[in-house]
């Protein structure tokens, strides 16, 4: 079964091989275990990029396959980050507090210890008590469960309300943006219990492993992110390869017709929305320890829009397209906005990429949508049609799905 699945999906094998090769090469060139050509901070950037690839897969499943343009999946990503961040911050603060109290003549009571940790963490927002939502922050297992459960339950509740009343299309997109905005505004408040606009920080330090250099930790996370991306890819490819994938694409192209076949479209959307939210949460939980900090600005509505832009540019409706889009655009983005791209002097005006990158990105999004709806992934069709020129039944992509192949070629 597994064999035949991989055999029927050669792109999955190619992707996994490329991912493995990439991970090995980066490891060999890293400061931690290799020759030191790749700096630790760049290893972290690459690891983070893999996590963005994973959240892009979840976006592609929702949008590219089922046609639900969710502009809220980055909120689920951020929530996953917050959940793991709580444990990292609690444990690490606890370690620091315990060692500083160790010299005290009288051993601190459990209550004193707790108060000291709370003061450390919440001092910046003027509080010295643990909010209720930190109840499980001392347990890695529970916080890991929350990485999946919190985004999952939010998506379930939101999706249940929205899909049941058959909110679809642009209204659903607006609603997901509203949810994202509400969440980030809530987190910005100091009494949200998650340190307001300070967010959670110091997440790159693994509790109990302070002796391990960041050069090594960054590789661990790179491997973890690569593993998660690989597993997420295989899972997504498996989900869309069978009848479930057929139903999803059916919903995208003509959801009323799917209903008349007896499929409860609302339940499918709900399962997919919730499942992909969990996936986004996992991606976020791997991303933010590499970023070191998470704050409510990460969840801002614009982040989810970027996610859609990545997937569109990479090519929606194919999983590798989403990953390529996320990797390509986010790396390019950080190059342009990081001040590393040389400014262009036009004589009368100097193009500062930090300011102009967004314009370029927006423009390419519009151009891709208008002229190359298959995105970068469409290039692979060109290659494969060169190799097998007479192939029929090529994927027409989400927009052309309703056209006959012949019409599409005209």
């Amino acid at each position, binding site marked *: 079964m597994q064999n035949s699945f991989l055999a029927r999906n050669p792109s999955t094998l190619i992707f996994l091989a490329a991912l493995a090769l990439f991970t090995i090469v980066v490891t060999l060139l890293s400061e931690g275990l290799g020759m030191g050509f790749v700096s630790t901070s760049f290893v972290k950037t690459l690891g983070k990029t893999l996590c963005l690839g994973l959240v892009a897969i979840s976006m592609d499943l929702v949008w590219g396959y089922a046609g639900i343009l969710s502009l809220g999946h980055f909120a689920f990503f951020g929530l996953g980050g917050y959940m793991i961040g709580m444990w990292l911050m609690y444990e690490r603060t606890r370690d620091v507090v315990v060692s500083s109290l160790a010299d005290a003549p009288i051993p601190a009571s459990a209550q004193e210890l707790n108060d000291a940790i709370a003061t450390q963490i919440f001092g910046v927002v003027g509080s010295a008590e643990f909010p209720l939502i930190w109840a499980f922050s001392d347990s890695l297992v529970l916080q890991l469960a929350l990485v999946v459960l919190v985004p999952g339950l939010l998506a379930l509740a939101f999706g249940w309300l929205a899909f049941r009343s058959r909110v679809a299309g642009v209204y659903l997109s607006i609603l997901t943006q509203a949810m994202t905005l509400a969440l980030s505004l809530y987190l910005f408040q100091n009494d949200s219990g998650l340190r307001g606009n300070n967010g959670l920080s110091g997440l790159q330090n693994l509790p109990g492993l302070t002796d391990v250099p960041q050069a090594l930790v960054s590789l661990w996370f790179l491997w973890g992110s690569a593993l998660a991306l690989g597993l997420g890819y295989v899972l997504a490819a498996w989900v869309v390869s*069978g*009848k479930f994938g*057929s139903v999803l694409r*059916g919903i995208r192209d003509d959801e009323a017709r799917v209903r*008349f*076949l007896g499929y409860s479209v609302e339940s*499918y959307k709900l*399962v997919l929305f919730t499942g992909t939210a969990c996936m986004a949460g996992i991606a976020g939980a791997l991303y933010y320890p590499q970023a070191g900090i998470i704050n409510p600005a990460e969840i801002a509505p614009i982040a989810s829009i970027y996610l859609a832009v990545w997937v569109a540019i990479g090519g929606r409706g194919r999983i590798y397209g989403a990953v390529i889009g996320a990797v390509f655009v986010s790396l390019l983005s950080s190059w342009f906005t990081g001040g590393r791209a040389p400014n262009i002097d036009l004589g009368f005006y100097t193009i500062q990429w930090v300011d102009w990158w967004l314009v370029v990105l927006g423009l390419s999004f519009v151009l891709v949508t208008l002229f190359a709806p298959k995105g970068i992934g469409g290039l692979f069709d060109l290659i494969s049609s060169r190799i097998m020129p007479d192939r*029929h039944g090529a994927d027409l992509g989400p927009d052309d799905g309703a056209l006959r192949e012949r019409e599409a070629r005209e």
Partner: protein
Amino acid sequence: MNTLLEVSGVSVSFDGFRAINNLSFRIASAEMRAIIGPNGAGKTTFMDIVTGKTKPDEGRILWGEKSVSLLGLSEARIAREGVGRKFQKPTVFEDQTVQENLLMALKNKRGPFSVLLYRAKNDDLARVEAFAEEIGLADALMRKSGELSHGQKQWLEIGMLLAQEPRLLLVDEPAAGMTPAEREHTTNILVEAAKTRAVVVVEHDMEFVRRLDCKVTVLHEGSVLAEGSLDHVTANKDVVDVYLGR
């Protein structure tokens, strides 16, 4: 004669316009019925009501031996009860292969989790092949259905309808865009299906209706104008007036 579907006193208005007006209709569990009527008579709207797409303003729709009401059930639920529908304009999933289209329609569990774990086994593939054979698309199983001709799409949709194994087939203008030979084949498929299930065919083409050789219901302005054999209804003065636009 046991009734499968009973529609009584159903009315529906769109912005004050009464598209269906106090309509009553019943069909037995193994019966063929043709519905004819001029454009805008409400034939498609009638199917919309039975399949749950349009909610009627008043009236009752009872289904099956236990006479359960179909009102208030979702489209998907009604379809699972055994109501299959072929649309006036052929609607197949053009981005997917003929096989994928048929597999999706094939009678099987419809819940998201059972579908997620579902992998087509040999007997399901054999069933799909048999349906494809019946609609003359056996050689096209792996083709994208978007590449098919208009007539072939019509057939694929008929094949999907059969694959659902519904107890009631609602077929809206199946012969549109078909060659005479294809029409005849379509007639045969429908007549065969009506031996074991209820089939309602909407059609403008009188020749086609004649070959179905069944009871005919004439709709006009949302209600039944006449009912009986084709010869009987075409002899009816009201029907003649309606068709000649007098």
